[in-house]
């Protein structure tokens, strides 16, 4: 597994650039990932999505369904893609430090 260093912190990641351990997440991780996910500046809206994903994951042990993400944050899917160009899975979940989405993707 690759290890990346950024702003003095180290992160263990897989080939797709997902954090290996949710506990390793720090705000620096978001800064590190944002460019590869096509994001210039982290806005309050980005943060709102990231915060919700993290809360939901801590409480439920899984990532929320897209529908729940939209309902709770109030962002339609279109807006989520405007914030995270590669979408809620590859974009937002990666930045929030959640495990890589699995299944028949």
């Amino acid at each position, binding site marked *: 597994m690759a290890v990346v260093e950024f702003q003095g912190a180290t992160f263990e990641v897989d080939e797709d650039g997902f954090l290996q351990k949710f506990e390793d997440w720090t705000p620096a991780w978001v800064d590190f990932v944002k460019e590869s996910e096509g994001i210039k500046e982290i806005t309050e809206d980005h943060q709102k999505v990231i915060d919700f994903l993290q809360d939901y994951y801590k409480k439920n042990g899984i990532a929320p369904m897209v529908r729940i993400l939209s309902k709770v944050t109030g962002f339609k*899917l279109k807006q989520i893609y405007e914030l995270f160009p590669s*979408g809620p899975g590859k974009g937002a979940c990666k930045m929030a430090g959640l495990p890589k989405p699995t299944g028949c993707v």
Partner: protein
Amino acid sequence: MAKHKTPLLDQLESGPWPSFVSDIKQEAAARAKNEKGVQYQVAVDCPDDLLGVLEMSFTDGETHWKHGGIVGVFGYGGGVIGRYCDQPQMFPGVAHFHTVRVAQPNGKWYSTEFLRSLMDIWDLRGSGLTNLHGATGDIVLLGTSTPQLEEIFWELTHNLNVDLGGSGSNLRTPASCMGMSRCQYACYDAQELCYNLTQEYQDELHRPAFPYKFKFKFDGCPNGCVAAIARSDLGFLGTFKDPIKINQEAVAAYVGGEIAPNAGAHAGRDWGKFDIQKEVVDLCPSKCISYEGGKLIMDHKECVRCMHCINTMPQALRIGDDRGVSIFCGAKAPILDGPQMGSLLVPFVEVNKDDDYQAIKDIVEAVWDWWMEEGKNRERIGETMKRLGFAALAEAAGVPIDARQVQEPRHNPYIFWKAEDVEGGWERDLAEFRKRHQR
């Protein structure tokens, strides 16, 4: 000179069927030679390493691809299936081996010009290996690296005017039979309807918003050449309401042996002289045909449009003129709760191009609204239908309940009633009851 020894795979080069091993070796050799001077963007020996890793899997009986993989292009939530080899040092050419799904034209008609242009892109930016086509329908470009994904996407959209296919919890790439393009059985333009709905629902295809995957397939008639009833969450099957058209002269020609039954499909064996009684009349599942005095007679009210008689005597029997489509819902593979074929949801609906297929789109969207709200995480609509009941699906879809929606009525009496349909509702006072019935 091959890069890896492949004694097991080499055995698959013998025999009459086109050998995938010989073909991959041919591509490996062509890349090594590079007669066109291509600036290969992924390892030149990618196909060699694919054979190498496959040989290893043949030897030890285990796959050598790591679990999963999340890659893609900006703007879309699917379309690319990421994949990494679990022996990247031994087979660096396939360390990254992502698959790109490309939207195919319906009926899969191509010009060589299009295919050549596509292969030019893929030779440069991919392994040179493909799958024509994936089971869902997509053109499958088999094996490239992450940095090439946006490059390929740019070239596909800007130079070939073609988009990616679907993957993930969304509308997957729809597919149709070749329909009216060269089949006299087609009851509607399956390619056109498929194309129209694919364009209409591009957002649903590229950005996963569903509880799970969802597929459309379009068969021009009940023969099911694209297997819509087994392989799509919503399957569209052409049919007709009026009588089958009978050409008695052609019937006589079949009986007289001038025309081969089933268009000669059984010519490989001597089945004896065509016997219309045995091969058509007696095999009609509705027993609604008779052949008397040299005339074929049909009671079309009893005909279930199974296609058997038409398939057997295509020159004598034709589909009717009052045509439309039946919609089936819920087909799926076994995981999780068992395999399902589509259940008849809408017996007949018009296929009207003039109003942009509004009647069909209304049903599709009503079904989605319901499933997107009620469907559990990774629950196919067939399973949602089982969990919440067919009646709930039909009600959500705005489809009236109809005897044709069941093969047989239920035999258990666990029947739910809505409170409003029962006189007095559910609010009952036990004390009232006790006035009439002592404890």
